[in-house]
């Protein structure tokens, strides 16, 4: 099993899990646009199905919020 973090929350995944599989699992009830970074690097949407997650990855999923 892989140990990672998603928005700083620890998660455990099966080896060879792809990013789009993780997103489908964790974002199924959220209807907001979002973008993803892994280990501080932006991941374009077109790559979600090609990115295999690794042990220790830090995944950030961000969406619109208020701002000044």
């Amino acid at each position, binding site marked *: 099993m892989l140990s990672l973090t998603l*928005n700083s929350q620890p998660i455990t995944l099966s080896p060879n899990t792809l990013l789009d599989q993780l997103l489908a699992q964790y*974002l199924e009830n*959220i*209807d*907001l*646009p*979002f*973008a*993803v*970074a892994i280990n*501080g*690097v*932006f991941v*374009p*949407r077109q790559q979600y199905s090609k990115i295999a997650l690794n042990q220790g990855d830090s995944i*950030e*999923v*961000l*969406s*619109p*919020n*208020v*701002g*000044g």
Partner: protein
Amino acid sequence: MSTWQLADQVLTSRLLIGTALYPSLDIMQQSIQASGAEVVTVSLRRQSTAGQSFWNELKALNRRILPNTAGCYSAKEAITTAQMAREVFGTHWIKLEVIGDDYTLQPDPFGLVEAASTLIKEGFEVFPYCTDDLVLCQRLVEVGCRILMPWGAPIGTGKGLINPYALKTLRARFPELTLIVDAGLGAPSHAAQALELGFDGVLLNTAIAQAHNPVQMATGFKYAVQAGRAGFEAGIMPERDLAQPSTPVLGKPFWLAN
């Protein structure tokens, strides 16, 4: 009302407004409407239930969106946030913030130039939140910035234009650039002053959102910006040290003659 050019957009209002710190989303919506602003700033944050309501409200407002990189302390963080914002909001505009000091929220000039340089090469229209330092602004222009957003005062202080001389110098040195005072304004008169100095617009949030009556304050800023711009375009008289009567001296009645 006259129009002006902001990057690739033709706008009427010279007031850009933030979406944070309002007592409620309803007040935010009413304030933005009252301000007449056509551009609103937003951020990217981790998902929350409040985010859904905000997103629905934002779409209904139908304003031009200027995402920010608020909270970033390095060029790398700001670049990643900008890339994410471009995908989420579908805009190449980015309000670039790279903070260098926690206490004053003063921009990091070195990180700002580094991030601006990279993002411009990637096709972004960079709106750098910067200090009023002339040499920093020159460096930002050298890497391709067409817009500069110097602070009036530190974010959220409401102090107004703490260094009008530096802002006047920027206007004089960059006559062709779009200059917007961003942050530190507290009262509508501060916005009027910025426009009187020849700045193209102002960007603010706290002064409206934290007013006792945000909607009324938004209206105040709307008119202040219009008044300031009208004053600038009309040509403000030069200051004098000595008084000069406005009523004719010639033709005074005899009992006023000395």
